[in-house]
Every structure is written in structure tokens, then in C-alpha cells.
């Protein structure tokens, strides 16, 4: 249960129900999951904790600065899933995104 070996996932949504659903969709063994209910804190969290992936609701309060996150080095939030989504689907997408992101990071270095 080393926390370091887990991928850091940030969940950003202002609906608690959505957070709950997302959390249940993810395997807790594989991820460290953070939560943000507002756009601004999401950005801060994503940058400070260096999350590997973020799952964000695109319509949240305080979304200003979201663009910074999207263009920040090392982040590759470039996939979109429309609600509602199945639990398997989100897991699969997240995995592929993280893999892709890591490959890209390797290429950079």
C-alpha cells in the first residue's frame, strides 16, 4: 500500500453525488484520489500535488485559470468523457490517458 506507487488522480466537481459516483468507479488500490469542488482549488491542487490525471467537470464555479492548468507543463488533460459514463469506461480512459502522458514525459526527458 505504498502511496508513492499510486497514480494521483484529481476529481473536480461541485456535485457531491458525482464525486461519490466517480470515487466508486475507480479502484482505490490503484489511485490516490484528491477532491476539489471549485475550479480554482482544483488548479492549485493539481499543480501542488502534481496529479497524474484530473477528472474535471467543465462547468464548475471559479473556473478562471483552468486554461493555465491545461497548458501547464507535464499535464495532459486532453480527453473528454460525457456524462453519464459507465464505471468501466472511466477506468479504461483514465488508464490510457495516464499511459500516454507518461510516454510523452519520457520523450521530453
Amino acid at each position, binding site marked *: 500500500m505504498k502511496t508513492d506507487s499510486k497514480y494521483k488522480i484529481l476529481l473536480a466537481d*461541485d456535485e*457531491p*453525488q458525482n464525486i461519490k459516483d466517480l*470515487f466508486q468507479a475507480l479502484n*482505490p488500490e490503484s489511485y*490516490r484520489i484528491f*477532491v476539489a469542488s471549485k475550479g480554482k482549488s482544483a488548479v492549485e*491542487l493539481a499543480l501542488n500535488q502534481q496529479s497524474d490525471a484530473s477528472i474535471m467537470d467543465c*462547468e464548475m*464555479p471559479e473556473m478562471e485559470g483552468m486554461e493555465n492548468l491545461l497548458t501547464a507543463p507535464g499535464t495532459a488533460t486532453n480527453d473528454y468523457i460525457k456524462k453519464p459514463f459507465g464505471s468501466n469506461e472511466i477506468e479504461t480512459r483514465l488508464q490510457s490517458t495516464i499511459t500516454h502522458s507518461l510516454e510523452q514525459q519520457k520523450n521530453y526527458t
Partner: protein
Amino acid sequence: MKKILLYLILIILYLPIFSQNAEIDSLENLLAKHQKTDTIKIDLLNDIAFKVRFYNLDKTLQYAIRADSLAEFVDYKKGKAKSLKIQGVYYRNKEDDAKALNCYQRSIKISQEINDQITMAACYNNIGNIYKSQGNYPLALDNYQKTLSLFEKTGNKYYVAVIQLNIAGLLEFMGKKDEKLPYYLKAADYFNEIQDYRTLITVYQNIVSAYVTSGNDSLALRYTIKLIPLCKTMEDDEKLSLAFINYGLIEEKFGNFVSAEQKYFEAISISEKNNFKRGMLGAYHSIARYYYYQGVYNLALKYALKANKEANETDRLEEKSRAAELLSFIYEKTNNYKEAYKYHVVFKTISDSIFNESNIKEITTLENQYKFDKEKEVLEAEQTKKDALQEAELKRQRVVRNSFIIGFVAMIVFALIIFKNLVHIKKANRTLAKQKAEIEVQKEEIQTQADKITEQYERLENLDQFKESLTHALVHDLKNPLSQVLINTSNQNVRNAAGKMLRLISNMLDVEKYETTEFDLNKEKHSLKEILEEVENGQETNLLEKNMKLNLHFDDYLILADKELMTRVFDNLLSNAIRYSPLNRNIDVFTEALANDAIKISMRNYGETIPEEALPFIFDKYRQFGKTDCSSHRSTGLGLTFCKMAVEAHGGNIGVSSMPEEGTDFWFTLPYALKNGEMDENEIATQDDQRTIRLSETDIEVLKEAVNQVKEFEIFEISRFHEILDPLREPSGVDVNDWITLIFIAVYIQNTDELDRLIKLAENGKTENTDR
């Protein structure tokens, strides 16, 4: 009567030009050789004609007429004028004054044309001579003066001097003795200058006479002293004798009698030696008079008799009378009265005739003067009249000319103005035409654009209608499957979500529907409380999530309403209230009885107040207060619109009031409500309480370790909360599960205060009331 009788010597000057026959002969020879008819021949003819007059007057006329006709032939005006003048001289010598005058005047006319001043002057002089001989002295003087001014212009000093002498002589005749002197003096200067001493002697003599007559003896003496040596030099003994006589007179007047007597004798000796009759007469008379005044009567008689004898030899009456008078005086003194009487008679007779003659002369002169003046006056009047006429004519011409010029200038100015205006108008027209064309083009463009816009608008409208109908169809088609989901699922979450969705869809469809059609109301009596409780149950999960309840602060009412619609109104209002409420704050519902059984129902939440500027629009379609990007307040915005429509369909009003301290009230009225008698007071009291979680000692014990761990977690690390808290769920009691649920809700929405409160609750086992 000591009147001194003066002997006045008057010399009338003629200009005798003595020529030799030989000269004329040579000229005639020259003429004979000169065959050519030209100006030289004419000049020659005139020359001969003029010079031959002293020898053969008839020849003068012949030559002059030849010259005249030739000059006429070759149009030689100068020759013509000259020949006319010579013809005048001929007629003058023939004493045909009228013809002479005619010739002179014609000559003057031609001379004027060619400005031959010498010929003109000669003619005027000759005319003057004619008038003088006729006794018409004023006209004579006039002509002489014309002559003088002309000669002065030519600068011929000899002629100027001669004419001045003539004028002086004329004035002598006219008796204007004072006026003549200046002419003599001027003439003297000229003759002296041109060294014509012979004539100068005569002039001096006249000057002396004039001074003597005017009594200016000293000046008379001065000129006499000048005159005598001049006469001696020029060997003019006649003039010398006369000069001595005057000299004697002057000396006598000065009282130098010896000298005077001596001078008289000089004169007598010179005169007797040369047998100068006039000199002898003058000298004898003067010395006789002298002796008479000296009382030497014998000598006086002797010379007086001699003077009388000389006087009788002349035809001059004055001399005769003077001599007779003197003799009469002398005989009187010598007491020879017989002789005295005899000479007195002679004197008297002669002097009478002289008097008559002079009277006649004077009368004639006066007549002539009068005539001359009158003529002159007439002439002047005519001249004035002529001048006036000329002036008037000139003025008229000037006026005509000026008005013509002014008219012309005005016309030009006018024409210029018109031209300028025309140009201006033309230019303006051109500009206008250009602008018009531009405007036309712009108009067309605008029209085209307008057409395009209309077209686009129509297309957009069509598109919009299409979209709307599509949306409507879609939304409508969504309703049925959603109802199926609601009916067939047991999962609470699914039900919640489906309910929410159904509400949104229903609102959308209804708003759209009732915009065009009236509500079809199924009004029945319903318990207000029942409806509200039903609504609360429908939203239970939502209320639970925010840890709140719906508190009804009223006795039950029976309201007359369409139950389905009223349920949905409350459902919307509550859903709204929950959304905007903070955690742990209950939502209150109040009623207020209004007049005529009407009722006002208010639902109050304690969330953020609605900005005042947003209040008027809050029930409008798709309006929503707050930031547009605020997704927590996101909705279709049709809920309140639907409420307004439904309430108004029931005949009520809907409104909102939002105050920072008091919360936000959504209220509406219904026109008809009845109080429902059955009431459950306990229920109300219970509902009034804060929702609480009570943790037992066991619960706290169970949670203790977890709480200590949870305290250390960052609120956002949701996976760690789950790691710790999820295993505690099942075996524990309801309150523990509720506690855990609340923890997660706090974590999910990052509510630190709520998290702290729950941790403290788990640590102490106490409940803390949320602020009321």
C-alpha cells in the same frame, strides 16, 4: 496864366526801307532764270513785289498777284499769306482801306493756320496803321498790341522796339500821356541794345518831351544830357537843335536863365546853319517866350515875329496860334494894342479852329472808343456765350461719355457676375449629380444589404423554428422513457436523478405550452400540508445531503388548486431553495391569511441573497441570478417561470424578497384557502428541532482511532478518508453511518467547518446546534 507853353516834338515813325533799283533788277533777273514753279519762285515774286512798291506800285500788285496764284497752285500757304499782305500794302497805298483790310485779314487767317507769326504781326501792324489813320485809335491800339505780343514771341528785338514806339505814338495821339512813357523807355532799351542810335535819338527826344510834360524835370534833364552827345556823334543836327530847345526849357524851369538863353541860341544857330524850319520855329518861339517872361520885349518881339513868319510857312495851326498868341502878348506889353488885337484875333480864330478840330477829333475818338468798347463787349458777350455753349456741349459730351463708361463697366461687371454664377451653378450641378449618383449606388448597396439581412433573418428564423420544434419533439420524447425509469428502478440515486430530469423536462414543456394556450386546471380542495409533505418526500435525498429539513410553520389549510400543478410549483420552489441554501439550515414555510379567504404562502431559505437588480427578472424565461458560470446554481431557468405561470393561472401572484439578515422569501398567493381544523402540534414541535446525530459512547469508541487519523488528513485527499472510514460502515449503528455520510459530503464539497464540527462531535459525543 503863367502857363508854360511847351514845344512838343512828336516824331511819327515809319519804316521806310529804301532799296536800290539795282537790287530789284537783280531779283528780277533771278526770277527770269528760275523757270520752275516752286516755293523759291513764289518767295522771289513776293520779295520783288514788296521791294518795288516805292518805285512802281502797280508792279507790286502784278508780282503779288502772280505769287498769290502760284502759291494757290502749289498750295504754298506761307507764300499765299505773304502775297496777300503785299496786296494789302498796295491797296493801303492806293488809299483803298477796305480792300487793304480784307487782304490783311485773309493773310492773317492763313498765317494763323501755318503759325507764320512774322507775317501775322506785320498784318496786324498794318491794320493798326489803317485804323490809326482813320482816327479809330482803340482798334489801332488793339492791333498794335497784338503785333507787339507776336513780335515778342518771335524775339525780333528791332520789330518789338518799333512797335512799342508806334504804340507810344498812338497813345500820344489818344492823349494818354502817362501810359506812353513805359513804351518809350522799353523801346529805348531795345534800340540801345541793337545799337540803332539814330532811332534811339528820336526815342530819347520823346522821353524828354514826356518827362517835361509830366513835370519830371530832373529825369528830362538826364535824358537830354544823354541825347545831346548822341546827336553830335550821329551828326544829327536837326535833332540836336530840338534837343537844345528842350534843354533850354528845362534850364529855364530850373531857373538857370543864362544857361537856358545859351541853349536856345545854340538851337537857333544850328537850325539857321542847316535851315531846319522846325528847329528855327521852335527855337525862335522859345527864346521869344523867354524874353517875354524876362521883360525884354524888344528882343521878344524880334524873335516872336521870326517864329510867326516860320509858323506861317508851315500848315500847323497850333504853331500859328501859339506864335500869334505870343505876339499878341508882346504887343500888349509894348502897348501896341492895335497889333496886339490883330494877333489876338488871329490867335483866337486859329485856336478856335484848333479847338473845333480837337473837339471833333476828341468826339471821333470818343465815338470810336465807344464803338470799340461796344463791339468788344458784344464780342466778349458772344465769346462768353460761345464759351458757355461750348462748355455746355463739353459737359454734355462728358456726361454722355461718363454715362457710357459707367454703363459699360456696369455691364461688364454684371456680365462677369452672371458668368461667375453660371459657372458656380454648373459646378454645383455637377457636384450634385455626382453626389446623387453616389447616393444611388449607396442606396442600392444598402438595399442589397437589407435584402441580405432579411434573407438571413428569415433563414435564421426558419432555423430557429426548426430547432425549437426539434427540441420540443426531443424533450417530449424524453418524457416517456424517463417515466419508465422512475417506475422501474429501486435505486434511490437513479430515482433522484430521474425525478430531477423529469421536473426539468416538464417545466420546459409546460412553459412552452402555456405560453400559447391556457392552463386546463383541475381545481379541487387539497391540504396544503399534504402537498408540501409529498414534495418534501420527493426531495428527501437532496435535503439529507445538505443536512436540512423543511419546516412548516402554519396550521393546515385547504387550498382550491390543481394538485398536480401546485405540487410542481412547490417542488420547483423547494428544489430552488435547497440549491441555494447553505448546509444545515432548514427551509421554512410560512402562511399568512389575507382578506377574502386568500392566502400568502412563503418559502424561505437562508442562502446568498439575490442581488436587488436581479429581482425584477427572476421569473423571466431563462433568467437566473448570480454568475453565469456558476454551475452550482445552474438550471434551465424555467422553474420559476413555470411557477409564475401556474400561480397566475390560479388567479394568484408570485414574488420574491431577499434581505441579507432575513433570507430569501419566495412567496405566492392563492385566492381561496380554508383553514384545516386537524392539527398535530407535536409534529410541528419536532420538526422545529435541528436535525441531530447522537453518537453513543460505543460509537465514539469505534470512531476514536479513525477520527484521530482523519484529523491529520488534508480535506481534499478523499481516497484516504475512504480508506479509513469505509471499513467502519457496516457493523456500526445508524448514527455512525450517518456520521460517515456527513463526513464524506463535507469532504466532497470541501466544507472544512462542517468537517471540524463532525470531528468534534465524534470526539466529545455532544451535538452542537447549527446557528439558528
